[in-house]
């Protein structure tokens, strides 16, 4: 199209947007993302280097920090592994069988999201503690659940479960019935239908749920500290260590741990999304993947 010339200015007719208010909404989006997400993260990235490379390197040579990171990551990973089958089973039961009282169960699933983490922590510590309903019999069997890494895994399993259920449930619900029937009529057994037809379709939501639960697990503080025992090098989680460093006025130490957490969390997200793409071949159109 030939541009119109209006008193020396080249005037291009503006392309019409389908929806009004594009520039306003884009501006607001950028502003909020900038203020709420990018700015704090940038501060976190820059802050550890404030006193130069030396203090940072010193802070990074902290065996206790590495032990805490190891505890956090291993426990979060184990918790997600436990959550995956349980969450899938829960979603399956809610969607397919609709047992009596499924509405109540449905509401209960979101509870770990809703109740304050400290409340969760106290409840779990009471239940699994040496005198608790589960802790006492387990103790007799020689299992020390609370005040050990096992306690951390228990707390993180509790926290992570809704992520799995809620990401799988809608996909399972909308899974076309005729696809399963087609597999049935082609001679696939129940187990074959589950493994070859259903599970591949559920893999992407399972992975995103797992990614979210894992990320939450690494950062979980309130529900963990009551049940963990918090022994350095043994059952001390990373977020707790950050709090302790802050209480010691060791800001370099705190921010360097935070930096490591940030970077690893980012790497985890990248890995999950990469994995997700590789399991969703055919499920997502290439241009939108």
């Amino acid at each position: 199209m030939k541009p119109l010339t209006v008193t020396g200015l080249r005037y291009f007719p503006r392309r019409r947007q389908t929806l009004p208010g594009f520039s306003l909404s884009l501006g607001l989006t950028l502003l909020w993302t900038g203020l709420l997400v990018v700015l704090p993260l940038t501060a976190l990235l820059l802050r550890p280097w404030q006193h130069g490379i030396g203090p940072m390197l010193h802070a990074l040579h902290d065996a206790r920090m590495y032990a805490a990171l190891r505890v956090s990551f291993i426990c979060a990973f184990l918790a997600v592994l436990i959550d995956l089958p349980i969450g899938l089973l829960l979603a399956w039961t809610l969607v397919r069988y609709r047992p009596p009282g499924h509405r109540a169960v449905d509401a209960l699933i979101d509870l770990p999201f809703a109740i304050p983490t400290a409340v969760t922590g106290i409840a779990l510590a009471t239940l699994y503690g040496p005198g608790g309903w589960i802790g006492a019999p387990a103790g007799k069997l020689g299992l020390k659940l609370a005040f050990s890494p096992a306690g951390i895994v228990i707390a993180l399993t509790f926290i992570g479960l809704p992520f799995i259920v809620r990401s799988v449930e809608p996909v399972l619900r909308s899974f076309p019935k005729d696809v399963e029937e087609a597999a049935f009529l082609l001679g696939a057994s129940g187990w074959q239908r589950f493994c070859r037809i259903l599970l591949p379709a559920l893999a992407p939501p399972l992975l995103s749920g797992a990614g979210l639960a894992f990320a939450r697990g690494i950062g979980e503080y309130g529900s963990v500290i009551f049940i963990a025992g918090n022994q350095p090098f043994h059952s001390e989680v990373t977020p707790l260590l950050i709090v302790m460093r802050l209480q010691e006025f060791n800001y370099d130490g705190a921010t360097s741990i935070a930096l490591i957490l940030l970077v690893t969390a980012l790497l985890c997200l990248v890995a999950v999304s990469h994995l997700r793409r590789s399991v969703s071949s055919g499920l997502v159109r290439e241009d939108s993947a």
Partner: protein
Amino acid sequence: MSITLEAFTQYAPRSSRKLLDNIALTVEDRAFVALVGPSGAGKTTLLRAIAGLSSHSEGTLLIDGLPIHDRPVQDRGIGFVFQNYALFRHMTVARNIAFGLDVLPRARRPDRAAIQRRVTELLDLIQLPHLAKAYPDQLSGGQRQRVALARALATGPRLLLLDEPFGALDPLVRRDIRRWLRDLHDRMNLTTILVTHDHEEAMDVADTLVVMQEGRIVQAAEASTLNAAPQTPFVMEFLGETLKFQGTVRSGQFVPDNPDIAPFPFEGPDGNATAFIRPHDVFLLPGAGQASVEKRPHFSNGLFRYQIVTAEAAFEMITPTDLSPQEMQNVRVDISRGKIFYPAAASEDPPKPA
């Protein structure tokens, strides 16, 4: 493969509402049968019952003389094509087609190379050899349709069940696939049952049409029989454009209420009746009455469409002749090729063609 249904009734889950009501149907080996009827008539329900996909039923359903659930799914030899194809989205076209073979127990499963050969063979058959590695989402509707068919054929079924297989396709592709399917049916000695709501499609491809209405079979016959002797007004109306004329049967004659329509001889009990007729069976008797005729815009296939205006009503007819202006004045309408039906209470009586 032959199918026999006797007094087959199916209920809606958790209710006593009948989805299929007392169905009796026999499908001979190598027959091509179309289940036709308006939506909600129970066509798909019947097809799914034959496939063994339904519960809550009573009565007899025999496949080759045996109740369907007596045989494991893999030995039934039934291929089913779903209305929305139901392809496995996470598998390539080749894996989709191979699925029925992949899930066979190890002892009966062909080796990898044999499965590969079978897939290639079927891809050639559906004329999509280049799409083996594509995913279903990358295919067009017609291509998905054919992949679904190939998947159903992979295990070598002898009974092919198709649920509205042409529903989502454009008319040209529809006709092609229809012909191709008929050819396939003849070549592979299949028994085929197809569900469709399009009577023309059914007449084009099937040997026998089973007309269904509200969960019952109204009439099952060849297309020519259905045309010549429809059992009920519903069958007549469902199978094509229909004109209706109220009238009375009186001493061996059908006398239409409309004076511009000529009475014609009809043997039957006296009483109120309705004549049903196709627009192309209507003839004009020039100079015999008061009705006038107007030419309608050109109608396809070399036929002409005329609007007949009588004192009481106006309707359209179709004829291959181009009427002259003289022939269009003062006409009387001849509907003696129509079918007479008595009102609902008597409609169960055997048909009485005029």
